[in-house]
């Protein structure tokens, strides 16, 4: 292949990447493809139960970048906040994310997959706080295919948020500027039972196909090399 053709391939590939990520952000995993080991998803009411998570902050006018996660592997809920997300100059406060029972109203566009998590921020005097900056929430689903959408319940209906796949462990992330109840929603069809981790058999089968193909090619190439030498 000529060098200018190779450079053209590079340019086209970058354009294809950008377009693909733009057109189908929900379906696009990160480039990252490291090994992922995930425990089975913990549903509310099952044993072991899903964990809540919280973090308490001292009274301050300047809130530092912070994150906290539940303790599962991978975490079923994670909260990430940037500078200035909460302002509580007079009282310390606690930010929590807790698995709760789903509200009576179901999403209109699909079914909840996994637990509903309630995000709250409360001062030690009992005053609720609302974020001043967007908060990133990472939730795990029971599966990642078909892609899930994170939705927020606003007391009357579920509203979808722009959702990105995090890849490993069927995790998804979205930003929100409100506290409240959040859940992963699968649209169109009900989710399959929790798999908990990558499909090992499928991975082995795919790897075997590639390896066998590579070996066959090598054998063929070696034979043609040998015949040319003869």
């Amino acid at each position, binding site marked *: *292949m000529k*060098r200018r*053709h*190779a*450079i053209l*391939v*590079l340019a*086209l*590939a*970058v354009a*294809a*990447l*950008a377009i*693909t*990520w733009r057109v*189908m*952000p929900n*379906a*696009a*995993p*990160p*480039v*990252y*493809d*490291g*090994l*992922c080991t995930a425990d089975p998803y913990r549903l509310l009411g099952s044993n072991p139960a899903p964990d809540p998570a919280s973090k308490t902050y001292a009274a301050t006018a300047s809130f530092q970048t912070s*994150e906290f996660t539940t303790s599962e592997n991978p975490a079923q809920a994670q909260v*990430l906040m*940037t500078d200035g997300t909460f302002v509580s100059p007079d009282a310390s406060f606690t930010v929590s994310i807790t698995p709760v029972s789903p509200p009576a109203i179901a999403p209109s566009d699909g079914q909840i997959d996994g637990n509903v998590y309630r995000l709250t921020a409360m001062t030690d005097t009992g005053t609720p706080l609302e974020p001043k900056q967007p908060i*990133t929430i990472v939730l795990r689903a029971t599966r*990642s*295919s*078909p*892609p899930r959408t994170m939705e927020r319940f606003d007391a009357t209906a579920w509203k979808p948020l722009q959702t*990105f796949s*995090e*890849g490993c462990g069927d995790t998804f*992330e979205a*930003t929100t500027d409100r506290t409240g109840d959040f859940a992963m929603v699968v649209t169109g069809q009900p989710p399959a039972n929790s798999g908990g981790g*990558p*499909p090992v058999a*499928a*991975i082995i*089968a*795919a*790897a*075997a*196909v*590639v*390896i066998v*193909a*590579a*070996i066959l*090619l*090598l054998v*063929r*190439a*070696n034979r*043609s090399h040998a015949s040319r030498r003869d």
Partner: protein
Amino acid sequence: MAAIAVVVASHGRLRVNVSRSTLITGCAGGALLVAAWLSTRGAGFTHLHAGSPGLAEWSLVVVLVAVAEEALLRGVMFTTLTEWRGAWTALIVTSIAFALMHVPMYGWQAVPIDISVGLFLGGLRAVSGSVTAPAIAHAVADLAGGWLA
């Protein structure tokens, strides 16, 4: 391990070349992949996980997996297919193989993006003439995907 076994059995088809130009090409390729990814995400979506426990071990595994994949696809397979049917065939077949390898982890919806990534890494292989550049780019992109997720 199977990928490494194929590479060992490949009788010199790996095409490793560690030179300044391949290192620069690899790093630039990795930076482009990361930039393309970050450009589609809002500012609130990027967080440095530098202090996360187990990050060093995770990073080592990710680099090993990335290098093994590249040694198999853009190393042995690319060279063998180029000798057999030419570089364009090698580029297309290795890109499809790269995408199919990731279906079990990410599902079929990831095929378009993984074919694009495969074409990009194959382009790096063709430009540099070595597996070193796509291996570096792949490792950089994978590490960034974890550190900045």
